[in-house]
């Protein structure tokens, strides 16, 4: 019963190879099976659209002075509508959030992507070559993983200095070992399959086998993990901003926005830290729900 395939030998439309577009649509259609995943997908998509079109969507520049301490839904001196109010320096919180989205989404994606490249390469090598390669790489990974992540970040950023590149470097340094472990486990399993032996017996090079024969078959769990990790990275970037180790001002940064205004929240200006905090939560929630949904759908098939 396990083989569910209709193969009657005739040429049908389904024999044509599917393009990337068709396959993408296919996966989205699959996601509708999981309401939770769909909610996550919608949230994440909204944030990505906002990030891409930030300059078009933001009503004001993030540095423009309008009206200090304006409450949400108030109107500025020149008739500017302040949907989410303004901060201490009179800047529109809504606009700053939108530009902040751009930063967060860009750096979270970049950092996760880089961490994946490093983690995948290390994991493939450790799982495929095994022996001393595995021992050295696994030892390195264990050493890094034994540090508390936040301490590691603070250590790296304070010693190199805060910048976008540093954040990426810090995230790669801290998450690559975790990714490596997952990839290594998957590799150890997949490397025993006959099609890997078939590739070996036709004399393929180890890296061809790892990247072309092996990696595509590990993609399922990795995509789910990548979604979760995007969420972690978002929190990390927020936390670093909050600690003053994020992107240098004046560029808006969600964590930084919360930090700047957190003392004012007690004085009744709740909206100043609230909306950035809400943005962080929603984006992380989106990634986590999407990951859950993907896992659910992939388990069902």
């Amino acid at each position, binding site marked *: *019963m396990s*083989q569910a*395939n209709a193969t009657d030998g*005739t040429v049908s439309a389904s024999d044509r190879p599917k393009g990337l577009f068709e396959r993408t649509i296919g996966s989205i259609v699959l996601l509708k099976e999981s309401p939770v995943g769909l909610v996550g997908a919608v949230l994440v998509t909204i944030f990505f659209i906002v990030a891409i079109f930030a300059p078009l969507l933001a009503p004001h520049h993030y540095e423009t002075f309008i009206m200090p301490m304006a409450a949400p839904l108030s109107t500025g001196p020149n008739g500017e509508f302040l949907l989410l109010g303004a901060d201490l320096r009179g800047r529109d919180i809504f606009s700053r959030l939108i530009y902040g989205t751009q930063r967060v989404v860009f750096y979270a994606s970049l950092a996760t992507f880089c961490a994946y490249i490093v983690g995948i390469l290390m994991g493939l090598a450790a799982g495929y070559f095994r022996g001393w390669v595995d021992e050295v790489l696994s030892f390195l990974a264990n050493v890094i993983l034994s540090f508390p992540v936040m301490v590691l970040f603070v250590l790296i950023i304070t010693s190199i200095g805060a910048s976008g590149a540093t954040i990426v470097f810090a995230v790669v340094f801290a998450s690559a070992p975790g990714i490596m472990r997952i990839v290594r486990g998957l590799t150890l399993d997949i490397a025993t399959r006959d099609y890997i032996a*078939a590739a*070996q017996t036709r004399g393929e090079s180890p890296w061809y086998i790892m990247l072309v024969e092996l990696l*595509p078959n590990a993609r399922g769990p990795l995509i789910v993990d990548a979604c979760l990790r995007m969420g972690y990275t978002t929190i990390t970037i927020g936390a670093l901003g909050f600690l003053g180790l994020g992107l240098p001002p004046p560029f808006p940064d969600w964590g930084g926005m919360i930090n700047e205004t957190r003392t004012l929240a007690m004085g009744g200006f709740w909206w100043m830290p609230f909306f950035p905090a809400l943005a962080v939560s929603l984006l992380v929630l989106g990634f986590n729900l999407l990951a859950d949904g993907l896992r659910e759908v992939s388990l069902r098939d």
Partner: protein
Amino acid sequence: MSDTLQQAEPVKSPPKGEPVLAIDNLSISYFIRAGEVPAVKDFTLTLYPGEAVGIVGESGCGKSTVAMAIMQYMGGNGGIVGGSIKFMGRDMSKMSQEELRQLRGSDIAMIYQEPMSALNPSMLIGRQLLEVPLFHEPGISEDDAWTRAEEMLAKVKLPDPARVMNAYPHQISGGQQQRVVIAMALLSNPTLLLLDEPTTALDVTVEAGIVKLIKEISAEFGTSMIYISHNMGLILETCDRVCVMYSGVAVETGTVKEVFDMMRHPYTRGLFGSIPLPTADKNANPLVPIRGQLPLPYNRPDGCYFGPRCDFFEEGRCDDPKGVPWLTVDEASGHAVRCLRWTEIDWDNYTPDMEQHPPNEPGEEVLHVENMRKYFEVRDTSLKALFTGKASRWVKANESISFSARKRETVAIVGESGCGKSTFAKVLMGLETSTDGQIVYNGEEISQLPVTRRTPRQIGSLQMVFQNPNETLNPSHTVGGQIIRVIKKFGVAKSEEDVHKRVDELLDLVKLPRAFKYRKPRQLSGGQKQRIGIARAFAGYPPMVIADEPVSALDVSVQAAVTGLLMDIQRQYDTTLLFISHDLSVVRYLSDRVVVMYLGMIMEQGDVEEVYAPPYHPYTEALLSAVPIADTSIEKREIVLEGNLPSVLNPPKGCPFSTRCPRKIGAICDEERPPFRDAGNGHVITCHIELEELSKVEPVIVTKSPGGGAGEKAPEPAE
């Protein structure tokens, strides 16, 4: 209707008493996203006390679903949609969950295919056995239960039951585990025992022991049994009656003797035509695969489900949507068939058109292996090993392997799991290098040459067909892409056009539509995947192909098609085929020369007719006796091996087979490596016993009546 049969054979009178189990018109469906999938339709079976009924069929035919339904255990998405199951006269669908729970494991017990997953790995075997009496017999003391469990272990012929009681499942062998599972099932003294492929995961000599035990159980305890298997030979050995299933429907039922000798359904006939019985011969009397494929449960044709694959299909009759009723062949024995045309088919004069071929004439020597050894080092890092200085031990996977293969020849390497046959294939392919000795292939010494250092020509000239159809192809790439890669890698064709031409050629070669090149492996059935695996191996015109159990994961009818295909290609390309297998029936059918291995050593080698006839090596003799043969006219001498396969880490010092050999002659077997005894014509037996002695041994397999086979025979007196 039954007058068309010549006088039916007198059968034993139908058993008396109330039926233990009466399944009536049972229909079972699974409910999935796509809707209702009927798994079993209109299934009827009556089981009397002390009777053993076999349910036989290929994968996906619904035989396990029936077993699950009897246990009333259908999982979340399955359900009985029609008919009834009565156990001891009571309708099981009307029982409460609590009643069913009491019934399961006490009155009805089940034995599964995988003993290791049926036992809890973290519990002592004794404690697991104890649960049965403690749960089903309130008031029994723990001591009594323990004694009962230990006695039961002795009854299933486990050596040293007291030790087994205090062992964890992983500490005993697979065969012993299955005996424990059987003991557990028998502890509650069940009225009905369900056996779902109980020996499929076991080696053939271990299987023989379990089968013997099952037969003894039915004699001693009088338990009624339902034996589910895909193996016709096992059904013949264990059952009184048989029910053949196809695509969720029982198509033929009757006594084993009658169904096996006078099968009336074209599917049953097709099934027997695909089994490599001793009478089959790859050249003169080739196997006849059933054409086409098993229909999917939601895609079954109208009328007879076998219609599209049947040679006797008649439009307007066989495709009547009303379906096919049971037709009685023989009232007295209960032989019935679901075929509208059974009286019209003249099986005596039915000869399927299978091409006959002259035997292959072997050419010059292609492969020569001389004294090849392969040892693996196992490092022991424990403290004890450090102190005793025995930090590294050697697994002797291959020990002095010597044989040769000639052009166009099929050489089979046969042996049970752990005999080193796959290690040998790895060394040959260059995935491992040998420890010692020579492998000369096409005049080049390759035993020390890993695949990474072989030339593309060397690699392309030695290719492999793998065992597992679900793993042989990369699920992420299209079928065509994977073949193209091989063609380019071996430099068979250079231009895009030529490459695609070669892909089409290869797909034609393995008789698959060319459009399959755009498909992903998951869109293919097991047999089709295996064909692609074959096409891939032959892409570089290799003079020699190693096939590592290429058909053992396939259903018999598909098996016949794939072996047939492999041999057609071999003829066309003049390929030398090295066929690695554990299945002696398939090996006998398709090989020219046989190499029998045990624990890394060659026990016997020679031409196929010589190895399968005396003088035998005692191991070959035991193997031959263990293989179940689905032919009632064949009589086997029973040889059941005692003991377990020794560990490869600690093999016997003398003859590797000495610990289990029924013909052991004395201390010499334990102490000294046996000599090679040449019986002429390349037939070599590695044994301490003189050839003359071995020649006196009676053949293991004897055909009772001349001209026998799976076909219809003249009636003969009952035993």
